[in-house]
């Protein structure tokens, strides 16, 4: 057997690629093993219908952490980011539309059509999100401290964070303390009267979670996302050629730096000897040994499936089994013969309103009711939808005059009560189209095909255990030093030489590359020993 590699990375999702890049940049020769035909994980573009390509899963980035984009020189490797002026357009059943722009001034004008008071408040919230976000942002780039045995570095980190929290000044510091555990519905109500605006911003606190806007802790999700992008409702962050282009650029950057990427190579086992990870075994039976084995897969798949749990303490296994990752979103991709006509946007001079994300979920109660059904094991009959029509800003994705529509549907609980997703797949698609038709009556006749991706598909086809797009619930008790488990949030595992770098580690929560970059930094510390 050839002598051991420096590092093997299990899974070529965007975080795995980021980790690979930083290891290679530091002079190591990581090998990335990707099960599917191309790397990228959830950052993926595929032709799902002749001539129609779309971001099959993620359709807007986190956004990517700027330092990562810089370090990897993604632009040099062909990444063309598209950041439309429109962040999100929110549609109301009464035929009104609220457009939020990246420009605060433009947003205020739009909000002013609903409420002058709210318009005046809007910049206040954005400023606070930015200030508070700056502190959280710092925390997000740290490896969470070890609570049990904090080392000097940890204490320093805590001290630094503590200091920047103080530097916020009383008002914003208290905001941070008070907002963290709050329900996002309460937070938006502190600022705005307009229901449509409240719901549009609140949605950012619940996207991808098994929580409703009235669930405590959803404010923190908003704050964490606000740390990367202080626009209250979030901006839009696309890539020319779909999200897959981000993965491609990352892959090239990593390869260029000296990493090797093998697609179609499925790891079926991580071998452990004397409590140290020694090698990975592929489905072909090939065994590859490495000094460091880094898993981009979710924590449960990594430590309960790929690793034989026999190598872990029963207590650890039990806690990991309690790590919550029940998915709540489904994905529907549509190939359209033309651009749908949204009632709320009739008479719009151009398509710019559709160039960002489209939000459907006009009231807090609407979102909460959608959540209610999922608590009892049903998918929402009136779901919350986050939609993009990437072909509006990137015509290369569809034949001339035609369009692709990418729809995130929430809530679609992984576990259905008294049914399964294969038998509900069609009903799910119909529900999404029916819901959309209430806002764009001519949509149904434009549909050439739909691709329906249920939580079950997310698990089976894309390897997301429980169908959770963020590798684990975004809840107060699974953040920061508790992601995935208290005191196992430092990208290391109880097994020597085995690391994690995926979304199931801090900070998780979106297509930002944060987990991959943090993990690389920690792993390098060990490799250099």
């Amino acid at each position: 057997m050839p002598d051991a590699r420096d590092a093997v990375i299990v899974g070529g999702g965007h975080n795995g690629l980021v980790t690979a890049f930083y290891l290679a940049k530091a002079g190591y020769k990581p090998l990335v093993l990707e099960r599917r035909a191309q790397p990228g994980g959830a950052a993926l573009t595929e032709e799902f219908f002749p001539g129609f390509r779309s971001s099959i899963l993620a359709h807007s980035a986190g956004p990517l952490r700027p330092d990562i984009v810089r370090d990897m020189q993604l632009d040099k490797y062909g990444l063309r980011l598209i950041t439309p002026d429109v962040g999100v357009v929110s549609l109301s059943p009464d035929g009104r539309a609220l457009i939020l722009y990246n420009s605060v001034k433009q947003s205020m004008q739009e909000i002013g059509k609903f409420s002058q008071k709210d318009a005046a408040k809007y910049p206040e919230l954005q400023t606070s999100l930015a200030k508070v976000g700056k502190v959280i942002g710092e925390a997000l780039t740290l490896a969470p401290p070890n609570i049990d045995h904090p080392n000097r570095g940890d204490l320093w980190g805590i001290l630094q964070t503590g200091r920047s929290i103080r530097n916020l000044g009383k008002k914003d510091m208290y905001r941070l303390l008070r907002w963290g555990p709050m329900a996002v519905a309460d937070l938006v109500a502190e600022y705005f009267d307009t229901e449509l605006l409240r719901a549009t911003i609140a949605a950012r606190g619940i996207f991808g979670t098994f929580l409703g806007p009235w669930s405590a802790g959803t404010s923190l999700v908003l704050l964490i996302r606000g740390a990367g992008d202080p626009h209250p409702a979030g901006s839009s962050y696309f890539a020319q050629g779909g999200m897959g282009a981000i993965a491609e650029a990352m892959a090239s950057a990593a390869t260029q730096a000296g990493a090797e990427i093998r697609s179609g190579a499925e790891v079926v086992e991580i071998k452990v000897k004397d409590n140290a990870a020694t090698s990975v075994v592929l489905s072909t039976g090939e065994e590859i040994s490495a000094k460091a084995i880094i898993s981009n897969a979710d924590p449960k798949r990594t430590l309960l499936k790929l690793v034989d749990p026999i190598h872990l303490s029963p207590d650890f296994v039990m806690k990991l089994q309690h790590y919550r990752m029940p998915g709540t979103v489904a994905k529907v991709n549509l190939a359209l013969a033309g651009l749908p006509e949204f009632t709320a946007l009739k008479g719009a001079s151009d398509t710019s309103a559709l160039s960002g994300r489209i939000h459907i979920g006009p009231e807090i109660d609407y979102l909460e009711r959608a959540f209610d059904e999922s608590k009892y094991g049903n998918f929402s009959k009136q779901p919350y939808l986050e939609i993009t029509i990437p072909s509006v800003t990137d015509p290369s994705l569809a034949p001339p005059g035609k369009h692709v529509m990418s729809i995130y549907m929430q809530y679609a609980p992984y576990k259905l009560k008294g049914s399964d997703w294969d038998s509900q797949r069609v009903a799910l698609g119909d529900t999404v189209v029916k819901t959309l038709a209430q806002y764009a009556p001519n949509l149904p006749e434009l549909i050439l095909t739909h691709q329906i991706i249920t939580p079950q598909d997310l698990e089976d086809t894309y390897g997301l255990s429980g169908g959770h797009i963020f590798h684990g619930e975004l809840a107060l008790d699974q953040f920061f030093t508790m992601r995935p488990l208290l005191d196992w949030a430092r990208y290391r595992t109880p097994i020597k030489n085995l690391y994690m770098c995926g979304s199931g580690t801090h900070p998780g929560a979106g297509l930002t590359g944060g987990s991959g970059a943090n993990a690389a930094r920690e792993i390098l510390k060990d490799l250099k020993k």
Partner: protein
Amino acid sequence: MANAYDVIVIGGGHNGLVNAAYLARAGKKVLVLERRYVLGGAACTEEVFPGFKFSVCSYVVSLLRPEIIRDLDLPRHGLEILPLDGTFTPMPNGDHLWRVNDHGRTHREIARHSKTDAEAYDEFGKAMQAMCRFVKPILSMVPPDPATLNPKELMKLLFLGRRFQGLTSEDKYNQVQLMTMSAIDFLDQWFETDVLKATMSASGIIGTFLGVRSPGTAYVLLHHYMGEIDGAFRSWGFARGGTGAISNAIADAAREAGVEIRTQAAIARIIVKNGKAKGVVLASGDEIYADIISSSVDPRLTFVKMIEKGNLPDDFLEEINRYKFRGSSGKVNLALDALPNFKAMPGPGAHLRGAISISPSVEYMERAYDDAKYGNFSRRPYIDMVIPTLTDPSIAPPGKHILSCFVQYAPYKLRPGLNWDDQKQAFGDNVINTIAEYAPNIKDIILHKQVITPLDLEREWGLSEGNIFQGELSLEQLFFLRPVPGYAQFRTPIKNLYMCGSATHPGGGIMGGPGRLAALEILKDFKGAA
């Protein structure tokens, strides 16, 4: 000219009385002013119907701080706590879950539903007690102010950090989870029996506008284990003579210490002159002056109703207006001709002497919350019932009984078009219909019925929005954030004006903690001034 009093305490609730007693024992001349004709606030006993003495609002006691019982020597002043043994949960399918303080019997009972849960239950109890030992001193400490650089405050934070470090990593894990998880997510890690999880989770939502699946509700599970009458963990009880007897015992101790107490003395406003509280104006128009005003009523009454505009900084008022009350519960008190007869365990028996909990399943609890979210009272509510007459016959005519029902959810804000005055009747009937599903004879044995809606709690007991804890016990309103950030140390922006009610740390329940801690802070400032 010197004032007639050193301190005027606004409100004769249990916290106001505790506050007064501690101040008087330190030699201060204290006057307590209570709006109602009876003392105790929500901890009161009233003969609502001839011969029937109801614990009208609060009905069980467990959190009353032992140091207060000791310091004020309450047993000598007539306080007698009678144990409340166990929780009986009838189920629609005719089965039941009956937990008692007898470890062996509870173990066997739970094993009947699930062997593994029976084992886990013991472990769970141990874990909770470890957590209680960690949290208890926090209940007796003045919250630190993390925003100051005052070394004393930083020491407090350090103290907390040290205590946390002192925990085993297992306990740390539990503690962090307790502070952040939902009651159900937390309990799911321990148990599989639905009815057990549902009944245990109930203590996580009482007095909050949250469901058992809302993060942050796990913490309140602790309170159930913190009951510490006579230092024994987890014992809940009744006061002989009803909950009012507790207030009366405290009042008695206060009077003995020299406190003057006036009832039916409603306060119109607090006199503030150039940023200093000087005294109060009674509804009658009389003015009474004192060096210090200590208010045990909630922040909205204190700062919005009793203080004239312009005396408070805007951002403070903003915070006070933002402070969340949202009462979510009501009360139905029944005078009974006989005992209710439960299908799940027919006839009289020890199962009626403890708490009777209508919480048959987790979904039942969560759906009860769903109704409330949209402005309706729960079609099938969570009900916590007790029959105090079985333990203390003195409060009802011979052979008659009292059934005291705590009901959640009853949202203070009903959906547009509904109001509580119109809904009161339906609310009461709905509770009785719910009970009838488990104890069919209930309708035939009701002699009298008292229905208390959140609106009644506000009007009659001065609890804004009918919140029984003077403000939600949600994470963002606890400890150094209670009632509002920067003012968690009982002081207010107005000099000489203090808060000592449940809206301050450590919060609601018949605990007395706020009244005592506030008194200690006030005394500090007296010394400082002297």
